């Protein structure tokens, strides 16, 4: 059985930041990520990030991933990285994590501490013919375009005007793909207004209070039916057929939390954070003394916040292992807490703050 001091599960913005923070504080870290390359969703983000200089505002997401990787590389003596490696289970009776590397190389590892930075899964909408080739999740479209350089089709209907729907629409246009429209069930866009303005001025209509009713086509998508809905989300108005070969769903994410359930962490359903999340204290520690959580796994939010949460978790783990003293810890925690409060101070952040209040405990008393 392998051993490690700190195991970080997930190598996205939160996991990378957690690993860096733990390693620079002197912990020996094992980082596992199920993807072929580290960076999580960051490697697909060709747009510039918001935030302040601390969060590298104005820098494109994939560049931020490169910077984080360099930071991790600087600590390579203390960091073991397994990519293409999925943590498949947590065994609460002995604290062992089972992993599979590639297709069939299973191993078990016993960490002293775990940081769960497992990210999120996409939600999808049920509608007739949504099984047809041409119906995509926005994550898949981004992977195809921005990781592999393949366009998903020629004419796209985007479903959802949150930040992902808006950004992916913009990226599709950058790749020369026509976005014929964006449907949004709410009466206003959910993402940042400026992201919407960017696609609007390129001529893309946003249909508020509309949804996709069905995909048209026999073997592949040849069109979509959209329809206006009322404030109870019931269909109203005429069905409109539009000619598209791609229907891209960007209707939200939900935290990936299976391992947290397996670990017996106290969980809470928090709609503002888009699903079940682990209860945590301000150090990002769960009800299991040895398990911390960070990033989308702790509630759906922006990558900028995920990076700060990762730092907090990494630092907290280091403190719990006696790698840093209390004074230094408190000082740095206060700085990270300030940055998080700043990032959550806007219109979109208000909802996040409500959600976090629902699942944050004062202290676990350990």
């Amino acid at each position, binding site marked *: 059985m392998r051993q490690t001091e700190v195991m970080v599960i997930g190598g996205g913005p939160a996991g990378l930041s957690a690993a860096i923070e733990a390693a620079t504080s002197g912990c020996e870290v094992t980082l596992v990520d199920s993807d072929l390359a580290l960076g999580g969703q960051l490697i697909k983000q060709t*747009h*510039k*990030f*918001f*935030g*302040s*200089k601390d969060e590298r*505002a*104005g*820098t*494109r997401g994939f560049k931020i991933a490169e910077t984080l990787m360099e930071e991790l590389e600087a600590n390579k003596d203390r960091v073991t990285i397994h990519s293409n490696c999925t943590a498949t289970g947590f065994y609460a009776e002995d604290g062992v994590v089972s992993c599979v590397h590639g297709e069939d190389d299973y191993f078990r590892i016993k960490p002293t501490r775990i940081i769960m930075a497992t990210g999120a899964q996409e939600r999808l909408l049920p509608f007739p013919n949504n099984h047809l080739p041409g119906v995509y999740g926005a994550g898949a479209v981004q992977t195809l375009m921005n990781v592999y350089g393949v366009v998903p089709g020629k004419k796209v209907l985007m479903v959802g*005007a949150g930040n992902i729907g*808006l950004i992916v629409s913009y990226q599709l*246009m*950058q790749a*020369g793909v026509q976005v014929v429209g964006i449907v*949004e069930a709410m*009466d*206003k*866009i959910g993402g*940042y*207004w*400026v*992201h*919407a*303005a*960017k*696609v*609007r*001025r*390129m*001529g*893309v*209509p*946003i249909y*508020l209070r509309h949804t996709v009713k069905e995909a048209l086509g026999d073997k592949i998508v040849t069109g979509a039916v959209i329809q206006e809905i009322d404030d109870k989300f019931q269909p109203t108005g005429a069905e409109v057929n539009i000619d598209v070969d791609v229907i891209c769903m960007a209707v939200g994410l939900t935290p990936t939390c299976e391992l947290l359930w397996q670990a017996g962490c106290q969980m809470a359903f928090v709609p503002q954070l888009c699903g079940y999340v682990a209860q945590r204290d301000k150090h990002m520690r769960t009800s299991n003394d040895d398990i911390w959580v960070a990033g989308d796994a702790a509630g759906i939010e922006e990558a*900028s916040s995920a990076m700060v949460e990762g730092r907090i978790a990494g630092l907290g783990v280091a403190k719990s292992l006696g790698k840093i003293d209390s004074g230094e810890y408190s000082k740095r925690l206060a700085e990270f807490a300030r940055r998080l409060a*700043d*990032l*959550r*101070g*806007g*219109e*979109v*952040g208000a909802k996040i703050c409500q959600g976090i209040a629902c699942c944050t405990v004062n202290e676990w008393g350990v």
Partner: protein
Amino acid sequence: MTEKEKLFNSGVLTESRKGAIEPPRDLWETKKNGLVIIECPQRIPCNPCHTSCPTGAVKPFSDINDQPSIDYEKCTGCARCVAVCPGLACVVVDLTWGGDKDALMKLPYEMLPMPEEGATVDCLNRVGEPVSKGKVIKVTEPMHDKTHVVHVEVPKDKVMDIRAIRVVK
């Protein structure tokens, strides 16, 4: 929802509001190199327009979520914010550029193909409708990060409508 609300709620500015106001006309008409217009009406955690401004024209934020506010006396129209803003919400308009008829706009551009200097492009309004032709004067890449700033000569009376360009094939 009124039509105006529908437009604004889908990302189209319909009138001046906090974080999205016109520069004062008197100063604007005489300010060589132009003044910035920022259209950023929503409170979001973002401040590169302020931190990148070399003259302090974009005033300090007391909270990073504040909408930007501008000291137009200090704005030199350098267009650094145009290149830096992650939301592509900044544009510089130089009303002193071309006599009575024309103005120069410095617009952010992240599409392909790249506009060529001297070429005629379509100038689009906030909903992507072509409202005039424009002549590309210069294309720069101030931060060397693939956000270009396109300097376009446009009809002066359209500067509050034009917010994007499209290369004509």
